[in-house]
């Protein structure tokens, strides 16, 4: 392991190559069963995607607490809110493009304005949805959820973090959104890796650039940082899993230390993690620059997950290139 990796975070060692790849939605599915076993008030509702969003494990074990509403995401949110109002903790599970998205009004009013414990699981987010193409690739979901009052937004970096995130959001009084992916990505955190909502994890230390990333691109960012180290650019990598409430202290610390933050996300560069950091950063005195890396205000397309990450510069090479170019021309 590079000496710059933060040992306290108990990441896999060595960081490369990854031994295990899983989809982050599996982490959610596994946690949901754990929650179901511990708490008889946990329910799950899905809109025709029980198997592909990994709610089917919960459905098999707890059929009396599972509801299938069919392809009806607006009803999904409303029914969940009705169930939650009876003292239940309800997870609704669908693809991120449709929930939130198709049911944003319902999430806004029936869930957030009613302030009930409905937790959204938006799966199949980012470009790694792959061949289905743009209509199914959620690239705007972080933007439309973080803007809602009473909503917590978490983007786990791997299946293990998704598992922890699911368990933690269940403890919250109100609404939450967890964003997961379709593709198998490296599981690089371990059970011992800390996870606290609102507290970003520093996975790698560095002095020149602070990369704030969320989702599976956190791992790609670590690999990019290892590469850039040998070029003389020292990058810290921060897993900013909670977009709301965002870790203001972490942003402040790294802004002061490096004066150069790069945000990396599988999301439009407007309104997501980058936007959230920009909002916080602009209130600090100081010289810190923010460069936002993600999808540049475009819809993507069909392709394999790897091809798309490569084309849109979100694999390790692409992230390294973006950091190199923006840092050397700062």
């Amino acid at each position, binding site marked *: 392991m590079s000496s710059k990796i933060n040992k306290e975070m108990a990441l896999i060692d060595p960081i490369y190559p990854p031994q295990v790849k899983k989809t982050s939605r599996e982490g959610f599915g596994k946690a949901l069963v754990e929650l179901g076993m511990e708490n008889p008030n946990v329910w799950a509702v899905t809109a025709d995607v029980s198997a592909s969003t990994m709610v089917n494990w919960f459905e098999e074990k707890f059929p009396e607490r599972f509801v299938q509403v069919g392809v*009806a995401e*607006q*009803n999904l949110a*409303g*029914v969940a*809110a*009705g169930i939650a109002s009876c003292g239940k903790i309800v997870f609704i599970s669908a693809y991120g493009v449709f929930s939130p998205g198709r049911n944003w009004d319902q999430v806004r009013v*029936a869930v957030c304005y009613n302030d009930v414990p409905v937790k959204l699981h938006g799966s199949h987010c980012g470009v790694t949805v792959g061949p289905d193409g743009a209509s199914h690739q959620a690239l705007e979901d972080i933007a439309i959820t973080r803007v809602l009052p009473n909503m917590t937004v978490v983007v786990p970096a791997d299946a293990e973090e998704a598992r922890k995130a699911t368990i933690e959001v269940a403890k919250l009084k109100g609404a939450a959104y967890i964003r997961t992916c379709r593709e198998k990505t490296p599981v690089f955190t371990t059970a011992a890796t800390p996870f606290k909502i609102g507290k970003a994890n520093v996975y790698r230390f560095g002095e020149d650039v602070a990369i704030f990333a969320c989702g599976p691109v956190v791992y790609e960012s670590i690999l990019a940082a290892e590469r850039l180290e040998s070029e003389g650019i020292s990058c810290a990598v921060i897993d900013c899993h909670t977009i709301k409430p965002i870790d203001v202290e972490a942003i402040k610390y790294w802004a002061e230390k490096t004066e150069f933050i790069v945000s990396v996300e599988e999301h439009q560069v407007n309104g997501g993690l980058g936007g959230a950091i920009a909002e916080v950063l602009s209130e600090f005195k100081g010289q810190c620059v923010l460069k936002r890396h993600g999808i540049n205000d475009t819809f993507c397309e069909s392709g394999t997950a790897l091809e798309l990450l490569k084309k849109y510069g979100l694999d390790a090479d692409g992230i390294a290139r973006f950091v190199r170019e923006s840092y050397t021309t700062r």
Partner: protein
Amino acid sequence: MVEDDGKQMLLEAAQPEVGMKKITDLRRLYLIANTIRKDVVRMLHEAKSGHPAGAIGLADVFTALYFNVLNHDPKNPAWPGRDRLVLSNGHVCPVMYAAMAEAGYFPKEELMTLRKLGSRLQGHPHRGSLPGIENSSGPLGQGLSIAVGMAIVAKRERKSWRVYCVCSDGEQDEGQTWEAVLLAAKFKLGNLTVIMDRNNIQIDGFTEEVLPLEPLAEKYRAFNWHVIEVDGHNIKQIIDACNEAKRVIDRPTMIIAHTIPGKDVSFMEFVADWHGKPPGDKEATTALGDLEEERKFYGEGGE
């Protein structure tokens, strides 16, 4: 006119052991409905904004609900055994607030705070603001989904409480409504009773001109619901229909309540404009006068 067709027995609901006693005297119920109408006129006049036609039209339905049909306790709005009432067409909330106040949920003076800054009586009902409100509504077509969620829990956990939902005909335009209708039938929610305010108006005019709904009863039957059509101003019919719904256990019930928007206020009846326009000074005075006259039918001279 109050009709006595000799079938009073259907009004004799079993008095609940817990919660508010049910009123079975029709004359009293009609007088309460009239009081609620007057309160709505006063509230909207004071607030200078709001939706009179639907609210005034639903006074009889809400009287039936709060004073006879619902098992509830105004002094304990969170009583776990209560029937749940979800108002989906939230813009008519003045009639719900007026019914709640009359039933004793809060002092009647508070009705005049409707829509004002700091009021618990928000322009569209807010679950967090006022005890007794089960759902924040406003966006049309959402309430039925909420009611269905509650009914699913109640059915699976074998609760004795029922779920009621008031909705409007205009709301049938929203696709979400039908998503909920399909799901309620899937789960055979015999513990769910929905009352639709069929007043034939929406913002841009008559429903059958904006987006025709007929044949509406047939639509619900095709979706495997039990359908009852009633005169939405006949309190006995409304109560009888709710009692009939309790006996239908394998499907949800839709009670289509045919109403006259702005009922009993001469200049409002049948006029679509009054969907969202509050009465001004002169109009409020005329309206209250009209309503006061109505009380004579129930054997009352004055307020």
